[in-house]
């Protein structure tokens, strides 16, 4: 392990001093052999950290997560350049099930629970890679974090509420004992109260179970409140990164993603667009 991590790594040292659990080095992703989606994305997730990946619709957040989890290839996408390393081991040529066995689980955008299975069966399928060992205590652990799921254990997953489905998707991923969880838009379509609740549970999981989290979100304010570090994506590139607090205070972020100026006033879209264009030109 030490021999591997001692290897020189100059691609990106901005992510701080903590040892990187995951490092994505300058990857390029092409769909269908022709459509260039990611153009040199680099990022790091430290051991036990929460990292936010921000950006608008279509910026490439989901694609980045899928490149890491290996799901990309089932969508005819391919990592054509660069490398993805998890604990010093390259994983970008692996199948999704091997990536899960390595300790990375993606919670997909839109929850994707198994609708015709019960809540408990959904959780049990999450333990597939564990080979059936220790599933009872794991179930109890998940029910401990998500007591609502315990109440709903016998229900078909297709019939529980959106918030419960999101909890179920996270709980199901947890059953695979991940060291890193890739969360794609967990706030999508949920009431702000629920989003807050889910984020707090994720933060607890991060602290208590030592699960690192890479969080792709459009809800930048919420994501940055829980993350230590943030990356901002635009058009398949990382355009900015830094400490969560720095980014949260960054005027550009407010401009681009919150539509607010420093004093909290909403600007007209024309100004924002102009500003964005100028900013891109300068960067």
């Amino acid at each position: 392990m030490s021999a591997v991590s001692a290897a020189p790594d100059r691609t990106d040292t901005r992510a701080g001093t903590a040892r990187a659990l995951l490092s994505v080095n300058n990857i390029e992703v092409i769909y269908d052999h022709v459509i260039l989606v990611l153009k040199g994305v680099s990022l790091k997730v430290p051991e036990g950290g929460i990292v936010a990946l921000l950006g608008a619709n279509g910026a490439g957040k989901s694609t980045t997560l899928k490149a890491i989890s290996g799901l990309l290839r089932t969508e005819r996408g391919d990592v054509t350049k660069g490398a993805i390393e998890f604990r010093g081991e390259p994983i970008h040529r692996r199948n999704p099930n091997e990536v899960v066995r390595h300790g990375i689980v993606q919670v997909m955008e839109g929850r994707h629970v198994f609708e015709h299975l019960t809540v408990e069966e959904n959780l049990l399928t999450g333990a597939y890679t564990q080979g059936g060992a220790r599933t009872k205590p794991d179930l109890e652990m998940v029910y401990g974090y998500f007591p609502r799921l315990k109440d709903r254990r016998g229900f078909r997953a297709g019939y529980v509420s959106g918030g419960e489905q999101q909890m179920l998707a996270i709980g199901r991923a947890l059953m695979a004992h991940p060291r890193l969880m890739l969360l794609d838009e967990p706030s999508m379509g949920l009431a702000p109260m629920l989003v807050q609740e889910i984020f707090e549970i994720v933060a607890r999981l991060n602290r208590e179970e030592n699960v690192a989290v890479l969080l792709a979100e459009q809800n930048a304010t919420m994501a940055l409140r829980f993350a230590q570090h943030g990356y901002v994506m635009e058009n398949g590139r990382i355009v900015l990164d830094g400490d969560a607090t720095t980014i949260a205070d960054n005027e550009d972020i407010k401009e681009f993603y919150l539509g607010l100026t420093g004093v909290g006033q909403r600007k007209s879209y024309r100004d924002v667009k102009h500003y964005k264009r100028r900013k891109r030109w300068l960067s």
Partner: protein
Amino acid sequence: MSLLYAVFVAPFVDMATAPAFFVEVLLGGVFAGLMYSLVALGFVLIFKASGVFNFAQGVMVLFAALTLVGLMERGAPVPVALVLTVAVMVALAFAIERLVLRPLVNQEHIILFMATIGLNFFLEGFGEMLWGANVKRLDIGVPDESFQVAGVLVNKLELSAAITAALLVAVLAVFFQRTRIGRALRAVADDHEAALSIGIPLKTIWVIVWAVAGIVAIAAGVMWGAKSGVQFSLSLLALKALPVLILGGFESVPGAILGGLIIGVGEKLGEVYWGPLVGGAIENWFAYVLALAFLLFRPQGLFGEKIIERV
């Protein structure tokens, strides 16, 4: 008036006056129904796990029966031949995954369907090349004779076939509901991508599903073969399985069983009691007409999975 009597009253009077005969007809229907169910089950398994309608299921039944008979003709005792046939069907599942499914992963369903039509022709030719094309007799050691229980004639072969089918169905039900692999199969059927995201390997699942479908094909092939000889017409069983699927729903194991029973019993009763009214041959079209009615009024079948829609 006399027509109404002949349709709505006379058959039931016949049933009531000769109850033993009625039970015999019923049992014959149950036997035929279970056989249809077994073939339909093979379709359901593969359709559930991969969304592929396996056109070759009927030929798999023929191929399994041919292999079994071929091995027995070469002197293998029944248990040995059975084990070897299972091995052949499992090997076939691996080969299909590697040579047919894997190169076509993420293609449209219609393309996979076309591939199974190709598989259908290949297996048909390959089986006859290996084992010959003439009609063969399959003797599995259970005599095709009857004994009497309370005045009802029961065929030994049909009885043992029915028991085997029931056992197989029970084992499959437990496998799907209670085991880790069974849950994974259902998960794959629900959402491929989500199944991948939690580390369920699709390739392994496909091999398992095709192997199980192959084993179900053996069961169906052995029972039909023992009853009516191993011949090409076995592969046409698939045609009878279609209405069963429409009745029961394409994704439902219990639906396949019940659908088969309804069609089996329905066509036998129809043939015996209503057949003379229309000059017979009800058996040949009953299943399809029933399926047509279902398509009109309940297209997802009796147990087909309703599409869950949240509002």
